[in-house]
């Protein structure tokens, strides 16, 4: 029998070197992230105060530039409408793929195109809506609802893909149990699969919403920019990403500062969504 020997010195040294190398790479990846957060908080915090959040941008070149209220409200409205469009469609697609399509050729083709759509740059969705809805002047030119459509197009594949993952986590054994009790397929889906997957579906929807909320390009050619507060979906509307986009290219420090404030506000809003998503996920009974 071979004798048991202590681990050789060279192996210990190699192990240390490899671990050190990987740790260094991890730290390197954290550097830009930390810097972004640092500047965002440092610059943004200076700009934000109660008045900043509760006044609209004035649009005046001289004098008081105003705050970002209309941008916060506009982003909330447009993203909410986009979610109302994309979540039912995305979850519906996922339900079809998991419960009915399964491994059929058609379902696999749909999956492939969802993947492709997830990778399409967001500016393409903006251009598409620009060509089909803005240039054609359906219901006027630039309008908030067109921005929502562009955002929804971006969000549908994200919702569909992550919902499919969640629905696949629902064990087949409970689908079988329900079918074996004499339940028709649609009742298995509505009474057993959906309630079981519900927390996960909420999480995947919130993450897609968080993604959509930060997009600039889909809104750029579809909603255009506005200063004043607007609630009319057929009209132009302000939004946080566009406010940032406009302000950051201005020559005045006050406007650039407003861009930082708007950026921090947007990041905080998205962070809140993500935290809620995580909390809901923790309540899920499915193993992830």
């Amino acid at each position, binding site marked *: 029998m071979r004798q048991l020997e202590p681990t050789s010195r060279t192996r210990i040294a190699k192990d240390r070197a490899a671990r050190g190398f990987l740790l260094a790479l991890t730290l390197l990846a954290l550097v830009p992230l930390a810097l972004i957060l640092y500047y965002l908080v440092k610059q943004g915090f200076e700009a934000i105060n109660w008045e900043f959040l509760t006044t609209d941008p004035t649009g005046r070149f001289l004098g008081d530039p105003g705050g970002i209220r209309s941008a916060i409200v506009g982003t909330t409205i447009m993203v909410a409408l986009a979610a109302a469009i994309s979540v039912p469609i995305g979850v519906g697609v996922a339900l079809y793929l998991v419960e009915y399509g399964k491994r059929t050729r058609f379902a696999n083709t749909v999956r492939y195109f969802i993947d492709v759509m997830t990778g399409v740059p967001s500016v393409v969705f903006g251009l598409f809506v620009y060509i089909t809805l803005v240039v054609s002047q359906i219901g006027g030119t630039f309008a908030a609802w067109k921005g929502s459509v562009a955002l929804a197009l971006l969000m549908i594949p994200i919702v569909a893909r992550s919902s499919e993952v969640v629905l696949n986590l629902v064990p087949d054994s*409970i689908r079988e*149990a329900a079918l074996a009790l*004499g339940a028709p397929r649609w009742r298995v889906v509505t009474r057993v699969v959906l309630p079981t997957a519900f927390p996960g579906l909420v999480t995947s929807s919130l993450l897609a919403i968080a993604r959509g909320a930060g997009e600039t390009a889909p809104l750029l050619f579809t909603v255009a920019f506005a200063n004043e507060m607007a609630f009319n979906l057929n009209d132009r509307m302000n939004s946080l990403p566009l406010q940032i986009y406009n302000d950051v290219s201005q020559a005045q420090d006050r406007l650039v500062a407003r861009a930082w404030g708007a950026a921090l506000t947007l990041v905080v809003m998205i962070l809140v969504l993500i935290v809620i998503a995580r909390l809901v996920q923790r309540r899920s009974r499915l193993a992830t």
Partner: protein
Amino acid sequence: MNTPDPTTATKPQASMNQPNADATPAAAPASAPTTTSVESADGREVTLTDVHAYYGGSEAVKGVDLVYKPNEVTAMIGPSGCGKSTLLRCINRMHEEIPGAHATGKIVVDDIDLYDPSIDLTAVRRAVGMVFQKPNPFPTMSIFDNTAAGLRLSGTKGVDVKERVEWALRGAGLWDEVKDRLDKPGIGLSGGQQQRLCIARTIAVEPEVILMDEPCSALDPIATLKIEDLIHELKQRFTIVIVTHNMQQAARVADTTAFMYLGELVEHAPTQQIFNNPGDPRTEEYVTGKFG
């Protein structure tokens, strides 16, 4: 009277359920915890004729003819992969839920061919209940809702759900353990209790036949014993088919035992005979532990 509303069902299914109308679940006396309140009634005879089952191109069950007698427990034994679970899943037509799988042949319950194209699949599954290998209560539902799930999921109307749930839980020997926490989640129970909950869920829809696919293989010996006692009680009212890997279990619970090998039915005889005086040398080799 708690029979499922015949008007909502297809014709053959209705006649499948009506003869049972004289079994009065709620009137059963509440007795000691070990005895269940399932009243005896005539179970249904199940006749299999030339049943073949396929997974894609491969044939897992190769032409089985078999009769399950009413009010008897039939055990299906055989080495892994012999097709006994597949055959079981053909009886409530769950086999065809697997993509690419299909079955042919005749399975007759009470003069009704379950494979008749005009028959409603959901009616088949209400008439032939199934208990699975691993306890699988619905994770989002309470104990009460789990037991009532079959009634609600199959859209059965005209049933006093509360009454039926109590009856089913008594029938599964679980009532006394859970009556004070019916609103608690079903997955909070122990494994053995979960499996009895699944049995309660199955009998709550008042099937004629209960299929059990290795119902004790995930349970400890004491929980296993409870389920076996329960099977003895349940056969007063239901025709029971149980797939098991455990030959002692087959000897304990089954009136007759069927031995399957490589997709074929080798032998079906009274349990004593299978274990003591089998007619086929392959059966003898299997029950004496020479292979499998």
